[in-house]
């Protein structure tokens, strides 16, 4: 029997190939502060998909349209580690597609407090360079990347700055000497992305590469902790009818809302361990 038949028949009984239900995630592991050169970092493993996010904060000039806000810059590196097809410039297309979606979802004042990133209006602001490194691909990249970005933003420590006037009347910026004197970001409103794939007549959350190959199209929804949908996008070559989209959106809201509370709890637990936490990284 072809794989697609096996997968679709299983889904009628809410059973997937690896035994999960249609709305269950695979085993997820999250760890923050794995790279010390960065201001914030997180590593997320979702089944066989592995993603590493590093955030560096730099001082730059605010964008002309919004002089009293900082901003985020995204770069997704689909490394050859994931698959040999990404060697050289092979991963650029996927990387650009992913980073464009990330800009839409995260780089707005509703998700992140951009006003808090401003130092002096029109002249200096904090720019957060969010670098996503794809280490292993087994489907559901958007979900893993969004969880990693939320965890990394939670972990980000931005140094406090003092502005003083120098001799010529210009502004001089001093970073605080104390490495522990830093500003943290409020990640309450940062959304998480949920990808729903339409396979046969049912939709599945957290599809593996195998299930993705059997699906016609997918819907990407970004959901906040209150259950508000901030961004929707349909990807894939097939077409979906409106009922499917409404149904998938409802399911996505439910799943996405349920994702935030355990994630924040885990992040706060990790944070409370402080220095006593044993950093595992890739050695575990």
């Amino acid at each position: 029997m072809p794989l697609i038949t096996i997968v679709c028949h299983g889904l009628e009984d809410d059973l997937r190939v690896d035994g999960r239900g249609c709305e269950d995630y695979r085993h997820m592991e999250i760890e923050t502060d794995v790279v010390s050169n960065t201001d914030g970092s997180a590593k997320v493993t979702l089944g066989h998909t592995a993603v590493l996010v590093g955030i560096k904060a730099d001082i730059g000039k605010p964008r002309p349209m919004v002089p009293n806000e900082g901003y985020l810059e995204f770069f997704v590196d689909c490394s050859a580690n994931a698959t040999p097809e990404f060697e050289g410039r092979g991963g650029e297309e996927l990387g650009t597609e992913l980073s464009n979606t990330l800009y839409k979802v995260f780089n707005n004042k509703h998700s992140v407090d951009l006003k808090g990133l401003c130092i002096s209006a029109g002249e200096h602001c904090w720019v957060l360079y969010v670098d996503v490194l794809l280490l292993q691909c087994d489907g559901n990249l958007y979900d893993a990347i969004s969880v990693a970005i939320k965890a990394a933003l939670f972990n980000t420590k931005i140094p406090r700055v003092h502005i003083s006037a120098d001799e010529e009347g210009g502004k001089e910026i001093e970073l605080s000497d104390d490495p522990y004197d830093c500003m943290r970001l409020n990640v309450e409103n940062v959304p998480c992305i949920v990808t729903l794939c339409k396979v046969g007549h049912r939709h599945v959350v957290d599809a593996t590469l195998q299930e993705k190959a059997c699906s016609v199209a997918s819907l990407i929804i970004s959901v906040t902790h209150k259950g508000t949908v901030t961004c929707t996008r349909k990807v894939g070559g097939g077409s979906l009818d409106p009922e499917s989209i409404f149904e998938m959106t409802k399911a996505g809201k439910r799943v996405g809302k349920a994702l935030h509370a355990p994630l924040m709890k885990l992040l706060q637990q990790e944070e409370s361990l402080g220095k006593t936490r044993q950093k595992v990284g890739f050695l575990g």
Partner: protein
Amino acid sequence: MGNVVQRQTRGALRFEVCGNMAGLELLSDQGYRLDGRKASELRKVQARMGVFAQADGSAYLEQGNTKALAVVYGPHEVRGLRSRIRHDRAVINCQYSMATFSTAERKRRPHGDRKSTEMSLHLKQTFEAAVMTQLYPRSQIDIYVKILQSDGGNYSVCVNAATLAVIDAGIPMRDYVCACTVGFVDETPLTDLCHAEESGGVSSLALALLPRGGQIALLQMDARLHQDHLESLIEAAMTACKGVSKVLDEVVRQHLQEVSVLSGE
């Protein structure tokens, strides 16, 4: 031991983060380096094999603050240019890239610049000397190395990580390939340089060694050094590489033990 001055460049403005001091002492009078090591001491090496299940072979290696991830795919059919097929041996294809957040200053492009291309060629040359390519004619072996955090000795850490990854993939090699970067300061060779030492104007030499036979796979130096010192520098590098090979051997044996326990042998 003196304090280290760190000047961070944020945007176009410069700051002094730590206080000021007299000069950068790479080797103090008591024989201690910037990070407290002695001249011939290596940094702490921690490694793990089989990090990723999807790749044929993978390994993660940390040497001090430098962290590298190596992944091996192959041997498989030659992709891309058919002209690359060799009828009597496998083709080795390497790519060296750095994560954009690996260096203190953010790197714009992970790979494709001259330095990365040069490193990729060096890695290819190193592994062609060690891997028994004549066992796999008409095929290709891909070795991809990613630096997650860069604190000096990038080439050496890559080679050590890639050795473990090739072993994890089950590809036969003549011997372990171990590499080390050494520098020469005050008539003393310093082994396993960190970033502060490398950028402090030390004449550094990178050496890749096959320890059992004492064969050198790659030797590279692009600084000025008096001829008389060369031999002692190479000697120091070879001793350091043999030290690294002991650590790698230990890691491989432990991994094998873990895997055989899991599969019930």
